[in-house]
């Protein structure tokens, strides 16, 4: 019996670049170099490991994003995923988390799945809600924020490290999991992997392929509105001293002057 895995990947502006907003207050995705969100590499890694431990499995990577988002899919294919789906449509510009979860859920259903694997959060929006939203829409168990995950006998098991406790979780397939950056280093694409990826299929779907109306997504369909975005004023330069043997005492003096001690 084959195990169908769909991995949700986001293409994001590079966090070490100069990220900013476009005039319509959406995240500027044109002027800043993008890449596969580092946190979604962990999702690809765990999906590949689960597939390797299954008798027969197929890993499809899925992204919703602009033309350049294909780069994210290409990277995941070169890591070892089997095929890719790119949902792209001009009407998607400005879609919020609720809308993104709709598009992902429809695309996942169309692709067919036993297991959906996501990252813990995107590195641009950092909401960490899309996996829960997709699970709600698909009506499957959400087994999220796992730092350890395994699939056996039609069941997914994992460990979720929370604030107050570490929980062991279990659910039957079909299910959705999200994995954290504690789940294990992601592999680097090999030269062979990069060459093989060039021949792997990448399907492109638009909104009509998913029976979604333009009004349901995009800035128009968004459930939230950004009214202002302002660059945080640079912190005023502080005093910096070189330790000449009294650095700790000088620091204590500063803390006392600020009433911390």
């Amino acid at each position, binding site marked *: 019996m084959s195990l169908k895995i769909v991995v949700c990947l986001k293409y994001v502006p590079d966090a070490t670049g100069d990220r900013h907003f476009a005039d319509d207050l959406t995240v500027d995705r044109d002027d800043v170099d993008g890449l596969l969100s580092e946190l979604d590499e962990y999702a690809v890694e765990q999906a590949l490991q689960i597939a390797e431990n299954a008798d027969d499995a197929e890993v499809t990577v899925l992204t919703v994003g602009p033309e350049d988002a294909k780069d994210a899919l290409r990277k995941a294919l070169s890591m070892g995923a089997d095929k890719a789906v790119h949902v792209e449509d001009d009407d998607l510009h400005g879609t919020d988390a609720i809308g993104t979860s709709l598009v992902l859920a429809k695309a996942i259903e169309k692709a067919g799945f036993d297991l959906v694997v996501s990252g813990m959060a995107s590195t641009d929006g950092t909401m960490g*809600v899309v996996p829960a939203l997709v699970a709600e829409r698909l009506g499957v168990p959400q087994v999220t924020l796992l730092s350890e995950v395994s699939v056996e006998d039609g069941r997914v098991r994992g460990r979720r490290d929370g604030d107050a406790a570490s929980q062991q979780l279990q659910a039957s397939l079909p*299910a959705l999991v999200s994995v954290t950056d504690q789940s294990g280093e992601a592999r680097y694409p090999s030269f062979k992997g990069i060459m093989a990826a060039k021949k792997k299929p990448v399907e492109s779907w638009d909104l009509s392929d998913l029976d979604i109306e333009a009004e349901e997504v995009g800035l128009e369909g968004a459930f939230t509105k950004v009214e202002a975005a302002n660059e945080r004023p640079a912190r005023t330069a502080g*005093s910096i001293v*070189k*330790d000449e043997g009294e650095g*700790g*005492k000088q620091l*204590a003096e500063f803390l006392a002057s600020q009433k911390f*001690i």
Partner: protein
Amino acid sequence: MAEVLIYVDHVDGAVRKPTLELLTLARRIGEPVAVALGNGAAYTADTLAEYGAVKVLTHDASEYAEYLVVPRVDALQAAHEAVSPAAVLVPSSAEGKEIAARLALRIGSGIITDAVDLEAGDEGPVATQSVFAASFTTKSRVSKGIPVITIKPNSAAVEAAPAAGVVEALSVTFSDQVTGTKITGRTPRESTGRPELTEAAIVVSGGRGVNGAENFSIIEALADQLGAAVGASRAAVDVGWYPHTNQVGQTGKSVSPQLYIANGISGAIQHRAGMQTSKTIVAVNKDAEAPIFELVDYGVVGDLFDVVPQLTEEIKARKK
């Protein structure tokens, strides 16, 4: 006056500080009605009343301990139906955000996460968020449905504002989805006796420069003199010097204390994402070029093995 629904984060009836902060913010937009679920729910009422809850809806069932997230979404949805609030506020923990998101989807609303401030506005509450590793501040609002907003710890002062706090039993019918994800085991975190990282007024952190698990005792000694929580960079966590629960940054905790002291931390963008909004920032680093110095109110260029123990001793001496 419009009612504002608040999801209560509590441990066996002990209300956690971020929930009290939510009560302060909720009072700006309406009358707070709190929802407390699970073991000890009824014991939260006195505290919640003291800080402004006009009503406390409680419900306990074994499902809350046995299954992940969905029982809480079902209950919050039931409370939403019972109260018809003007907004729903949830503390921004990982679980809080998941609960809030699923609720928003069910009630046809938008969701805003990780707000650091909230004000009343002509078209509904306006949330302030810190984005792109806190390099931008945005103002947003939910434009469709009842606003569902999650709020970060340390976003408002806790203020006593005694209110009725009438306790009412919430009636909850669990959905078919409720048993989907079973919690088969639970290992509580051991308490260190130090303040909770996200709630602490002072955080003392160590990074790769601390150079070994055993050396973290230097960081802890300083933290204990200041009554502070201990944080760590991902570099220090990844090599196993300090537990992941103490990681500060994009994939760890985001903190916003009155004072943040970074020791042997370079100040990478992902670390800054979790501490940049601290009120006062201090760093000790032997590299004068380390980017962390761009953020500091006070910095010492020096070896942390000299500076930190001297600082700890000096604080001890000044206390006498």
